[in-house]
């Protein structure tokens, strides 16, 4: 028997029950049906949000005004719905579902899990700190974290003791900010190091420390959950509809993918040597050098470098000429090249087989997939090279010792892209790269922009008279003369402005 009236009421209340707070610990997985489109959209949008969290965490000081403003904007974008007035319920639902989808994509390897946990924690920290004091306590209670705020009188009576036990507490801080009373079992790190005031089994935790405790809890839960998800992943992956999306997500680079060739033929083969020293990121410089020295590269290297060259503007004919001329100097004769290697070059350009989807690899892809083995030159030198060798290489490339040390520090902290950014700053002699490095082709583009900085104004005047860019004939200097090289840079500059 149906009781339609009652039904509706129940659904309404269950909605409220499910998402009774704007923030959540993502304890329960969503239990509804959604369309594949929504599945994909939610996932991709959350990924964009997390990438922004990562970028901002790297380029701004956390909690600075700039950080707050930008992250706020990105979060609003995430929750924004084209229709008017996305309801609070829908916002929370999107938050909930998108988080769980990304768990599927990011549970598989240690690297992915670490990245995902880090960004989700940063996002959570930001959103939690943004809450009103009352909502904070609400959240804690709703999640069975029995943390009470201490009354003003109690705070006053314990003031001296609180200041004497907690780091960074002053009289005013105690007055102005909340102090939480937490069972000591939930604050073991602080108890162990005696960095907190204890009374009758409770730890008195100042506001700025409670976030740490909540975050630790968050991290522990998420870490366990991801491990469990990884175990049940095979079942999910067997679903054909989901497998490609999940795989794409975990390698996703959510920015410009340099797949559309705008600058075909702008670069001459003779320029590549010079460019490799000036504007190539270390990985590509390394690959180019190995190719020149050995007259050969293995498949991984050919893919990574070949697609990069496609991204900076080499045409198929140029690419074939480039690879053939190099391989022929080695053990491969022209015939063999045409038979074996030319096919794969054409494949890269989408001229063979059915897939045309070869886009130049992003940093994430280079760092995370296909690690190099003996005899390989691909990968990310900051990630895959032995630090000693990396140090030598940097010294060979005339990077200052202090700069090298800075880079090695970043490598130690696993900030490979930041290390490459530092490399950019040191080789281009700038304080700040001015961009957040995500893609080798981005490195190249930014480098070119920087090196021709002075030409910008002049080019702007020309731009107003330009219609479609047109592959101008590029001068082919016989000598790699620095003045001429500079002129070439200028010419290259014109089409880069198109972006």
């Amino acid at each position: 028997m149906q009781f339609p009236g009652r039904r509706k009421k129940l659904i309404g209340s269950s909605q409220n029950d499910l998402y009774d707070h704007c923030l959540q610990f993502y304890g329960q997985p969503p239990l509804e049906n959604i369309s594949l489109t929504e599945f994909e959209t939610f996932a991709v949008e959350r990924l964009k949000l997390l990438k922004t969290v990562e970028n901002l965490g790297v380029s701004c000081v956390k909690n600075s005004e700039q950080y707050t403003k930008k992250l706020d904007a990105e979060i609003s974008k995430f929750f924004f719905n084209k229709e008017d007035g996305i309801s609070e319920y829908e916002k929370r639902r999107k938050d909930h579902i998108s988080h769980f989808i990304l768990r599927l994509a990011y549970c598989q390897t240690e690297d992915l899990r670490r990245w995902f946990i880090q960004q989700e924690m940063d996002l959570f920290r930001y959103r939690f700190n943004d809450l009103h004091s009352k909502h904070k306590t609400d959240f804690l209670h709703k999640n069975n974290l029995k943390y009470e705020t201490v009354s003003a009188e109690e705070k006053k009576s314990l003031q001296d003791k609180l200041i004497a036990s907690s780091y960074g507490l002053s009289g005013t801080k105690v007055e102005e900010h909340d102090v939480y009373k937490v069972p000591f079992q939930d604050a073991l790190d602080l108890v162990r190091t005696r960095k907190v005031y204890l009374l009758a089994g409770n730890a008195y935790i100042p506001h700025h420390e409670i976030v740490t405790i909540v975050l630790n809890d968050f991290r522990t839960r998420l870490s366990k959950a991801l491990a469990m998800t990884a175990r049940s992943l095979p079942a999910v992956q067997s679903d054909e509809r989901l497998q490609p999306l999940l795989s794409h997500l975990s390698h996703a680079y959510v920015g410009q993918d340099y797949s559309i060739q705008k600058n075909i033929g702008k670069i001459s083969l003779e320029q590549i040597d010079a460019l490799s020293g000036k504007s190539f990121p270390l990985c590509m410089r390394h690959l180019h050098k190995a190719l020149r020295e050995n007259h050969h590269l293995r498949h991984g290297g050919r893919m990574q470098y070949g697609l990069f060259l496609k991204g900076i503007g080499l045409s198929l004919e140029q690419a074939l000429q480039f690879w053939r001329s190099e391989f022929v100097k080695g053990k491969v004769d022209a015939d063999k090249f045409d038979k074996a290697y030319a096919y794969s070059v054409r494949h890269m350009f989408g001229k063979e087989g059915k897939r045309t989807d070869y886009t130049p690899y992003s940093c994430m892809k280079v760092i995370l997939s296909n690690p190099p083995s003996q005899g390989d030159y691909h990968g990310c030198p900051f990630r895959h090279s032995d630090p000693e060798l990396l140090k030598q290489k940097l010294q060979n490339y005339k990077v200052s010792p202090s700069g090298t040390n800075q880079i090695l520090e970043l490598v130690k902290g696993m900030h490979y892209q930041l290390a490459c950014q530092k490399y950019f700053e040191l080789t281009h002699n700038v304080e700040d790269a001015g961009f957040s490095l995500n893609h080798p082709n981005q490195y190249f583009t930014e480098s070119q922009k920087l090196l021709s900085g002075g030409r910008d104004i002049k080019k702007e005047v020309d731009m107003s008279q330009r219609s479609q860019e047109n592959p101008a004939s590029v001068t082919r200097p016989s000598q790699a003369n620095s003045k001429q090289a500079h002129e070439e840079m200028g010419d290259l500059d014109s089409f880069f402005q198109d972006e």
Partner: protein
Amino acid sequence: MSTSDYDPACLPDLLPLYYRRLFPFSQYYRWLSYGGVSKNYFQNREFSFTLKDDIYVRYQSFTTQNELEKEMQKMVPYKIDIGAVYSHRPSQHNAVKSGTFQALEKELVFDIDMTDYDDVRRCCSAADICSKCWTLMTIAIRILDRALREDFGFHHLLWVYSGRRGVHCWVCDDAARKLSVAARSAVAEYLSLVKGGEETVRKVVLSDPIHPFINHSLSVVERYFQQYAIVDQDILGSKESVDKVLAVFPVDRYFFKEGSSVSYDLHFSCVSVKSNSKKGGQYFDKEIMLQYCYPRLDVNVSKGVNHLLKSPFSVHPKTGRISVPIDLKELDTFDPFEVPTISLICEELEKPRAEEAEEDDMKDKENEQEAGERRRIRDYKRTSLAKYVKVFDRFLEAMARSRKGEMLKKSGEIEKDSVFHIHLILAFTLQMD
């Protein structure tokens, strides 16, 4: 009371008597059952025995008090240790699927051993103790007892003399028994101030701000320091010992002159020191007091849920002394050398009894088992063990009272809940119409 009569060779004769007539089984069982609140709590508890000829057996467990008595009287253990409450009966642990037999709960325990203070004791070393260094135990008990009660909120602490050179603390609160390994280790580290072994000269380092816990502990140490360190231990009595004290902080930073040995006040003013450097050294006097007196506990003993610790009322085979509970109200007068030995109490048992005894004998003939217990109770009451069993009784009473209080509170809550449930059901059924 002559306790020098104890001879370890007599143990095989004394122990059976002790276990038959003096060991307080009913209080012991009452303790470890914890009011029967948790099912099988006593049955799943591990005991370990050290038998004659150093034979060691683990995973002993018993289903009833009676079984415990019978087994102990049969096996006559020289040493008894108490372990954790497991998921299954320890005596059947081999029958359980591997991985599922787990230690679930245990009291939070602390072990303070006098040998850990050898670097700062001048009167004795190793297993020896004397009245001069016993003060260290008094200080340890005062500091830890306060901290465990006031800072951590524990209520039911049983302090026990180990029988030779130290004391144990059994924290028996519900919450304490349920603590995880991480929590136990955190508590133990919170309570640790003296760090470092042979290689470390300066074992206590204080810096601003001084945590309230340290201040509390310092006020206890200060109370005893003059008598203990300056007088009894005479740490400033010889050049050698003074050097040792001063070795704790870098001498070259300080200018000092030795004062007269006549009067010392608590703040170490016999040696006046001018500090030339800003960092370190501002709390040197406190650091020295703490290094000489602050409790040194073995974190490993406290950390493990399955750690086995000597049982209260067991006998120490080397000294013959019974591991008796310590009455904190009489802490300052507690004398480890007055603690009864097994030979003493067995001797006291043999003394002729008064006339009331005959009446009791008649009652006993009626019921054997109860008789056994009654007899035992009368028996220990005639010995020096009596006052220590009383301490234990008071401890058990306090726990029983607190359990009752908890139950009343809970049933009050349940009442409230059930009223709410009824309302809900009514509301629901009304809606359905």
